[in-house]
Each structure stands twice: as C-alpha cells, then as structure tokens.
C-alpha cells in the first residue's frame, strides 16, 4: 500500500501478543512475592497480626494504583465526546482499551470483598464492629452505611456503571470501525454528558468507600476529586508510555505525532498542577482549622517513618515534575516526555501508598519492598489485561470521521 497510513501499523506487535500470559504470570508471582515479604511486618508489640494487615493495605493501594488509571481512561473518553474533540482521535483507541480493562479490575477487587465477608478488619477497620472503639465509626455502622453488605452492593453498582459506560462507548467505536457511520459518533456525543455526571458521582463515592473509609473516623469532602486528579495524571503518563512503546515497535508512527505527545504532555503537566492544588487545599484547610478529628489523618502520615513519604511527595509529586515538564521543548522531546511519564507513574504509586499504607502501621524494609514488588506485579497484571483487550482490535479508529483532524492539527503555541 502506498499510503503512509499503513493498516499493518495499527495492529498490536506479534511479540506483544505472546507477552500476555508472561505478564500475567509474572505479575501474579510478584504479587505473591510481595505477600510473602509482608510476613515480615510486625506490630508495635511485635505481633504477627500486622503481617496480614499490611498485606491487605498493600493490595488495596496497588489495586487503586491501576484502578485510577483505568478510571482516568474512562473519563478521558467521556470528555472527548462532551467537548467533541478531534485532536485525540488517533490515540483514543489506546484509552478505550485501557478503559475496557475495568471488568478484569472488578475481578481483582473480589479479594477485598472476600476479606470483608471473611470478617477481617483489614483494610477496613469498621468491618468487625466488636473491635471498633470509636463512637463515630460505631455510629456509621449503626446507620448502616459502613457495613460489608452495603459496601459490596455499592461497589457492584460502581463497577456496573463503569463497565456499562465503557462498553457502550467502546461498542460504538468498534461498530464505527466497520461502518464508518457518523451516527456512532453522534450517539456517543449525546450520552457523554449524562455519563460524566454519573461518573463524577460514582468516582467520588468509590473514593470515599474504598480509600477514605480505611480511616473511618476521618472525612474530607474533596477526597474524591483528589483521587480523580491523581488518576488522570497517571492515565496520561500510561498512555504516553504505551504509545511511545508502540512507536518503538514500529507501530502507529504515521498516526501519533509529536503534536499528540505534546498535548498529552500538557495534560500530564496540568494534572500534576491540579493534583497539587487539590492536595494543598485539603492540607491547608485542615492545618489551619486544627481540629483533632481532622488533623489526625495527617498525624498518622507524619509519624513512624511515613513523614519521609509525606514530605517527599511535595518535591516528587509537585516541584520536580512541575519544573521538569514546564518547557514545551521537554514535552516535544521523546526521551524527555518518556522520562517524566515514568516519573509520574512512579509518584502516582507513591501517592496511593501515602493514602493507604500509613494505616497499616510503621513501615519496615522487607514489607515495603514487598509492597513495591506488589505494585510492579499489579502493573504487569494490568498490562496483561490491556494486551488481552488490544490483541484483536485495531489500535486506531480508522473510520472515525474526526481522524483527519487528529492527523493534521498542530500546536502553534505553548
């Protein structure tokens, strides 16, 4: 074919297909290795109960690490249709494939539900009412909000919503691959608005349920936005890395240009700032108000060794990547952008660790190393899901009517 838009370049590289089981197996082995290393965790009194507690927190943190990326992808797809964006069409399929891993991630959430029904109070301390000492948490259990049944029903609703939305959008996208009918674009444009409303609501509440309630005394109305902001940054980093890797494997070169990387780099930069804004707003208000039931969340994170992580996030999650991605020359440079995307993904993992792990107790070397292994394992499992989704699907929606726009636009400024 004489055209530079070669259809062979929009298929997954053959080698990548064969990586699926390897990634999945390696990921599970790393997760198991992490679980083993968390056996070294000891409570303040030297008890071994802390090991299980540590592992469950670690699993939740690593699960949130990849879950937020998939949610970021879902939001990205929705907002593209709300704003009728054209620039993103050639990278949209990658985001669609990330978002359609949500059903697999729902399976990865099952262990957490199972632990609840096995009546363990880790990571959710409210799960065993008999061992709850705080009157506030007791009240929350009594009004029926923090109970395992309701928690599971809510989680099912969230997943059902997300899976429905993801497959509605993905389904239309796939059908358009065959017919090229604009109706598929119009249908998605029509439903993207209401879907965004449902998405904001469900992500906020999922963040309250899954992450905030591990500290069931504590509350912060901005928490959902915080998790959302973190996930969006990680999503752009992931998409940049996947597109870069595909191009290095000889794919997508005519479809994804430096302009797309530049734009994704801008979004990543923007969400680094937005995360900092949200994190700072929460910190400032609680620091200033100085009410014990609000500040103790920070107290836990500023003691026992976690303070290095907490203070470290300021340069690592804000100052350094902010200055690093400030220049358009960096965002238009393949190596520069890859480096900062890796950085963003790493600090996103640190951020999720910061949200969840301090509740598991003081850190020590071996369990934390195990947590890191678990994080890498979870990411590999996540990538294997992505590869499963991507195996038989073209990586660019070739018949999307907005594709020419994506292939011709340029960033004049910034």
């Amino acid at each position, binding site marked *: 074919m*004489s*055209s*530079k*838009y070669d259809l062979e370049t929009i298929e997954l590289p053959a080698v990548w297909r064969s990586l699926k089981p390897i990634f999945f197996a390696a990921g599970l082995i790393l997760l198991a290795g992490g679980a083993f290393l968390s056996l070294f965790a000891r409570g303040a009194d030297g008890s071994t109960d802390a090991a299980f507690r540590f592992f469950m927190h670690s699993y939740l943190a690593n699960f949130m690490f990849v879950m937020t990326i998939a949610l970021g992808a879902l939001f990205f797809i929705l907002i593209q249709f*709300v*704003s*009728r964006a*054209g*620039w993103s069409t050639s990278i949209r399929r990658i985001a669609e494939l990330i978002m359609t891993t949500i059903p697999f991630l729902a399976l990865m959430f099952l262990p957490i539900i199972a632990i609840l029904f096995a009546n363990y109070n880790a990571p959710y301390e409210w799960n065993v009412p008999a061992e709850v000492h705080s009157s*506030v948490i007791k*009240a*929350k259990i009594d*009004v029926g*909000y923090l109970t395992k049944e309701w928690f599971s029903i809510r989680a099912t609703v969230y997943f059902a919503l997300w899976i429905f939305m993801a497959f509605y959008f993905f389904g239309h996208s796939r059908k358009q691959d065959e017919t090229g009918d*604009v109706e598929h*674009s*119009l249908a998605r*444009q029509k439903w993207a*608005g209401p879907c*965004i*409303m449902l998405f*904001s*609501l469900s992500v*906020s509440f999922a963040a*309250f349920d899954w992450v905030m309630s591990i500290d069931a005394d504590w*509350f*912060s*109305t*901005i*928490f*959902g*936005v915080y998790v959302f902001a973190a996930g969006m940054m990680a999503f752009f980093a992931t998409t940049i890395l996947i597109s870069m890797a595909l191009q290095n494997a000889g794919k997508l*070169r*005519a479809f994804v*240009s*430096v302009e797309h990387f530049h734009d994704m780099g*801008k979004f990543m930069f923007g969400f680094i700032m937005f995360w900092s*804004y*949200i994190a700072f*707003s*929460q910190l*400032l*208000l*609680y620091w*200033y*108000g100085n*009410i014990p039931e609000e500040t103790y969340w920070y107290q836990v994170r500023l003691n026992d060794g976690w303070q290095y992580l907490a203070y470290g996030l300021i340069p690592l999650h804000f100052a350094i990547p902010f200055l690093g991605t400030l220049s358009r020359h960096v965002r238009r440079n393949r190596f520069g952008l890859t480096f900062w995307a890796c950085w963003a993904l790493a600090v996103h993992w640190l951020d999720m660790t910061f949200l969840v792990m301090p509740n598991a107790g003081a850190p020590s070397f071996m369990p934390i190393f195990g947590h890191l292994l678990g994080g890498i394992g979870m990411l590999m499992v996540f990538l294997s899901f992505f590869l499963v989704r991507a195996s038989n699907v073209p990586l660019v929606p*070739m018949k*999307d*009517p*907005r*594709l*020419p*726009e994506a*292939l*011709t*636009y340029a960033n*004049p*400024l*910034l």
Partner: protein
Amino acid sequence: MASISSSYNPREIDNTGDIPGRRAPLITGNQTYTSVTEMVCRVAEDPQPRLWWILFGFSSLTATTFLMLIVFLIYKGVGIWGNMSPVFWAWPIVNFVFWVGIGHAGTLISAILFLFRQNWRTSINRAAEAMTIFAVICAGIYPGIHVGRAWLAFWLLPYPSLNLWMWPQFRSPLLWDVFAVGTYASTSLVFWYMGMIPDLATYRDRSKSPLRRFIYGLLCLGWTGSSRHWLVYEKAYTLLAALAAPLVLSVHTVVSFDFAVSQLPGWHTTIFPPYFVAGAIFSGFAMVVTLLVPMRAIYKLENLITLRHLDNMNKIILATGSLVGLAYGTEFFMAWYSQNQYESFTFINRAFGPYWWAYWIMVTCNVISPQLFWFKWVRTNVVAMWVVSIFVNIGMWFERFVITVTSLSRDFLPSSWGYYNPTMYDGLMFFGSFGVFLTLFLLFCRYLPTIAISEVKGVMSASDHAEHQQAEVLAELQGKEPKHVGHAH
C-alpha cells in the same frame, strides 16, 4: 460556510449542529476579513441606538446614587447596614463574592479556553474580559467600604502602619484576598488591554477624525501589525493565558479560604476551593449570556456571536451548574457520613431552618434551572437562555447568602443566635453596584472593540487552512491517490 449561505437569514442561523468530521462554521454569513472589521467597528463608529442612551441614563443615575450612598456610609458608619451580632458578615461579603464570582468568566474564556484551543472563544472573549474587570471593580468596592475606616484601607498592603512598624498579618485569608483579587484585577486588566492593542490599531486606522485617531493611536502604542511584533505578542499572550488559568482558579479558591479556614460548620469543608471555582465559572458564564444576548441583538452581531457560541456557553453553564449541585450533595452526604452533630445540624438548618426559603431558591435556580439546558431548544433559544441565565444569577447570589448568613446566624452558642434582616441601604447599595457595572459596560461598547477582530480573523484563516489539510488526509485514508508521502515527523 457556503452550504449555510443559501438559507442565510441575518437574524438567526443555527450553526450548532456539528457533524463529526465537518466542523460547523464559527461565524456565519460568508464573512470576509473586510466584513468582520466593518461589523465590529460599526459598533463604536455609528451613533449609538436609542436603547443605549436609555440604558446609559438609567445606569449612570444608579451608579451616581451608589457613589453618594458610599459617601453617606463613610460619613455615618457601617451601622446603616443590617449587619448585626452574630451575622457580622452579611450582604457586603455576599455581594463581594457574588461579583468576584462573575468576574471569573472573562479570564476563563480568554485563558483556559485558549489553552484548550477552543476557537469559539474569539467572538466572546473581549466582552467577557471587559465584564470581568467591571465585575471585579464592583467586588473590590465592598471590602473597601466594609473595613469601617475606608480611608485607611491601604493598611491592607504591606505598609508599616500606625508608626508601629506593624506589618499586615500574612496568615489571614482576608489578606490573601487582597493579594489574590489585586493580582487578578491587574492581570486581567493588562490581559484585556494587551488583547485590544491590535484592534485599537484597527480603530485608529479607520478613524476619520484626528482626535479619535490621536486617542486610539496613543492607546494602541503605535501597533503596526509587524510579524516580528506578532510573534512576540502571541508568545506573550500565550504566557499570559498560561499564567491566568491557574490565577483564575486561585482567586475563588482564596475567596473560599475566607470561609473554609474557619472552624464554623458549613464553612470548614475541604471541597470549598473547587466548588467555589465551579460556582464562579457558573455565575460568570450566566452573566456573559445575560449581557451578550441583548448586546448581539442591539448591535446586530448575530453573525459573529452565533448561536453556536451561546450553545457552548450554555453547555458550560449546565456542566458547572451540575458540578455545583454535586458539591451541595457531597456536603450534605459528608455532614451525615461524618456523624458530627454540628455538621448535621448546620445542613439540616440550611434546608429546613429559618432560611429555608433562601436555600430552596438557591437549589431551584442553581441546580434545577440549568438542567433545562439538556434540551437543545432551550440552549439555542435566545429568550429561554436569557431567562435561565437570570435565574442562575439570582441563584448564585443566594448561594453566597445561604453560606454566609445561615452559618453565622446559628453559631456554636445558641444564646447568640439571631435572624438577619437587611436594611434599605443594603438593598440600594447592591442595586447601585449594578449601575456601576452596567455604566462601565455600556461605555466599553461605545468606545472599545467589543469583539477581538484580529483573533476572529486568525481563526477564519486557520480553519480554512485546516479544512484543506483534512480533505487531503481524508483522501489519503480512503485509499485515493495521496498528494504527498513521507513521515509526519
């Protein structure tokens, strides 16, 4: 553009339908560079319509009343207002936050929509920026006269006051306000002014009278349209946009800190910063619609400020209105989830306490009325959208009233609870600030370029260029003979 021209109707053309793959035209009626210049310059060059004089007479009278009331207030003291214990912050703060919020749309349109490459901003950004500055002026008056001894308001700046070498207290959110609103006002002003420089040069070059030419010549600083200048200018404009985007977020964030750093239930909640920003954008866009709908009709600018522009703004109103609704809901949920009796009481008191009427006006106007924008005919019907935008303006004023007054009137000490009643002066001064706002806006229409002429032309040129390129790529994708080969980078 051509396909529309057959059904050309100078009053309204629906260019909101956007077929994927084929962008609807941003401006209607077969415009050329010449006709765009003509259409915009006409506003300031032709004699003003009678309606302008009626509105100006009315608004300048109101503004004068307002200024006289300020003098009276300074003479008599803030006791003429209804502020009382425990509602020490009443209408003046409500009005301040109301106006600052409205002042968010302009810079949002110029900066954030610019960064998102939303070309439709070019027809509306100038008027919105002007509105922003006038709204911020109205906002700035209230804290200035609320300090009691208004002639000492300069002590808010880092000035060693009272010969004690006593500096301002930098941990106070009210001082942050001084810096945030000050920075916002001055940055918006230079942003607005810088954007106008090329258009002022157009005004200068079209001027027939030497005096006009002299004044516009002075204002445009000798702009020639040199490409070397344009390049630096565009860079500076982009930088300003990149700076103004976080700035616009920070201003209402800081305003929300005025409330949220306290420990008062209903004020002390972490969602306040993004929630206030969403509310500010919401009210600002509503005010832009309120102003632009009559403006485009009076000056016959329907081809430049098209239904598509209004439709887009209405969508943003819908989105931010729903975000505000989400924030109300989150607050209520968290008050219940926290199982904190003070939080729960505050929110139940808001909805069912003595100020229930204000609360439900707020919910009706802010959350329910913008939901009408789900229907396309409401979004594209100028009368309907104008009515909704008025409702949103009312609702957003009541939101600030609800936050300020209901929380303060029921503080921790039941013995000091009270019911706030405004006085005649509160009402007249709020009304009067609209006079100031409208007077300045009418003068702006009269003397300054109401639409960013050069930017509209730039977008016309760019969309022509893009259409060409896309047609080429489409041919190539469909397997027709490609015009050129080679890699994109």
